[in-house]
């Protein structure tokens, strides 16, 4: 077992496109819950909508990359509107139940064999990233940490999208628009009594967070060139919540750093455990079980965070979305 290598592997997780995707999706959740108090338990659905919206339009209708991107964004916005209309006037937990149900509906639909020709059912879709790859400005070769030019390219693009989104969210949240949202998070009737159209603000927040989720779905799938429905189960949403709570829910940097910590710790525990098992130091569990142990730890971490440090690593306890 090589500790140094295991640490390097964990560090490497910081910059993967997947970490970027988790950070971006969790940033969407921060817009929803951290800033507006909306309980979205269906962020996996938004990611799936983004990924499939892009993949299907690219493969089925042969649209150019940019159109596929727009379709993903528009589809996610429509999904948000569809969910928001019945629920945003109701108690917060209704939105939670409706979003989790809607995300599962999306997953069932892209999994069903009936739509095999369109969605590829359980196998998913692949090879929709070709046009994206043709935009790669970096010539073949090795970059920084020995990345290939494509690895380097997808990382640059992924993190550019994340950083741009983070700046936009930051700008939005320090504006009077963001102030209204923060007011709604605490007491929407008070905000209503001051003449603000609460429903419309909640809808805008739901759409913006959903679009971030859809973009995250693209960051999640385009680099690897394939999308599979099994990846978009409710567990994904719960992992994103863990990421959000890890970093701090009412912050812009929190979700991104939360994603880095999440993946680094997952990689660290996985590699340490399998290292220990292979070297014979640990005999009572198998490598497969080691993989499950990590997710037991995620659950325990989520509980402990919520109980002992609900503001996360970066959050300000005084600004928590809930007392």
């Amino acid at each position, binding site marked *: 077992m090589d500790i140094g290598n295991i640490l390097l592997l964990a560090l490497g997780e910081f910059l993967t496109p997947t970490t970027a995707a988790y950070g971006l999706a969790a940033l969407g959740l921060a817009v929803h819950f951290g800033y507006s108090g909306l309980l979205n338990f269906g962020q996996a659905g938004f990611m799936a909508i983004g990924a499939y919206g892009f993949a299907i339009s690219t493969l089925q209708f042969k649209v150019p990359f940019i159109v596929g991107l727009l379709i993903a964004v528009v589809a996610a916005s429509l999904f948000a509107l569809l969910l928001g209309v019945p629920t945003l006037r109701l108690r917060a937990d209704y939105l939670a139940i409706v979003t989790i149900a809607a995300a599962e509906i999306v997953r069932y639909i892209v999994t069903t064999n009936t739509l095999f020709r369109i969605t590829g059912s359980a196998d998913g879709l692949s090879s929709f990233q070709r046009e994206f790859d043709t935009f790669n400005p970096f010539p073949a070769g090795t970059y920084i940490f020995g990345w290939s030019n494509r690895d380097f390219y997808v990382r640059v693009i992924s993190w550019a999208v994340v950083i741009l989104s983070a700046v936009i969210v930051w700008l939005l949240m320090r504006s009077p628009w963001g102030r209204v949202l923060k007011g709604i998070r605490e007491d929407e009737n008070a905000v209503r009594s001051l003449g603000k159209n609460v429903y419309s603000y909640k809808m805008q927040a739901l759409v913006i967070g959903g679009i971030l989720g859809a973009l995250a779905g693209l960051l999640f799938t385009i680099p690897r060139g394939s999308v599979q429905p099994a990846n978009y189960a409710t567990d994904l949403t719960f992992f994103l919540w863990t990421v959000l709570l890890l970093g701090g829910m009412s912050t812009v940097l929190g979700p991104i750093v939360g994603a880095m910590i999440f993946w680094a710790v997952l990689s660290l525990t996985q590699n340490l455990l399998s290292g220990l098992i292979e070297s014979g130091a640990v005999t009572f569990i198998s490598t497969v079980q080691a*993989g499950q142990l990590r997710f037991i730890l995620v659950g325990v971490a989520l509980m402990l965070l919520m109980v002992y440090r609900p503001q996360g690593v970066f959050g300000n306890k005084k600004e928590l979305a809930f007392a």
Partner: protein
Amino acid sequence: MQSTPRGPSKRGSTGIRKVTGAIFAVLLAVLMIAAPAAQATTPSPSPSPSPTTFQNNISGFLRDDARTPIPGVRIKATGNGFEGTATSSANGQWSIGVPVQGTYKVELDTSTLPQGIKLAEGQENPRNVTFSQTSNLSVIFAFGKGIVVQQQDLGQSILNRLVAGISFGLLLALASVGLSLIFGTTGLTNFAHGEMVTLGALALFAFNAWGVPFWLAVILALTGGAAFGYVQDLALWRPLRRRGMALVPMMIVSIGLALAVRYAYQFFFGGATQQLPGAQVTDVQIGPISVSPNTLWSLLISAVVIAAVGIVLLRTRLGKATRAVADNPALAAASGIDVDRVIRIVWVVGGLLAALGGVLWAYYRPGVTWDMGSQILLAIFAGVTLGGLGTVFGALIGSLVVGIFIELTSLVLPPDLKYVGALVVMIVVLLFRPQGILGRRERVG
């Protein structure tokens, strides 16, 4: 679902260990990162160390019209980019592991049939079969003369589905009544309720596997469910209530608990589907209805238990105290009701009912898996929401609606979309009647 190749995986770290040169290590590390994060990014970490042991099976028994097993017959399954074959064993059993659930074309190689045995008239071969909710799919081939494969007419199918739906709805109600009681008395939307359902089935399977007599294993499993509820309240929820934790954080804690417990089940139980004793039985014909006897038993048991819960709630002091706490905890406390005790009892009863629901669910599917409870968690939520959050009788009616709806829509929807209809209906009902079927209308902004 893991077996589709997705590029180099992190399991390659076996080789890394031998590498000592730091530079080479870095290079490899980079390779790892560059790998499309295949394994690491799969949120559902189900195990499949070798491609030969798939979690999903297409299986069946080959028996002729005299019920004697037919060995040595080759059967082929193709679909989803996969092809697998099996040969029936001495007792006629065959099983083909497949990578993903989906639709497969199953073909019995008639040339391998023993002399004198033929497929029954009207028996489709090859035929397409589709997985529904479980990881095991039974395929029956009928043999011999005189047996004609019956085509059910629609009316009969509807009747069959209706009975199955009532049975399914009632077992959902066992879980949702508990969930609703907990929500009513504590305000908690418990996302770990699915794991309480799983516990019943897992415990029964485990006790039975250890040789405990079935009746005792059932009692132990239900006691285990009740104990889980009790311990949860004692060690987790009561302290959190004492801390004055708000409801949304509590809900998120329950999500954490659900993840931890679910993967702990998988850790100990593995990813395979197991069967409880007597789970695979043939349907019986009662009048026009063809139904599995287990489904009937399940219907009967859950109806009796739910009626008992209803009587307790309506007639006894405890029931009145529970309803008082659900109505207004502060007022109940002021009028001398021991709120903590009521909540503790609600957790114990909720755990017991969920465990019983889990046992029945294991027979209904049939099969025991580590995530069987979380599979129906949303159906349980749908039942509770349809009935109106926090109303116990609403939860019962809502669950029945969901159960019947799921079974009836399976006549028109493909089996892998079985649950979609119920979820859509839940959302639509919320749109027009947000307080649920029996809920009181709340004043909303």
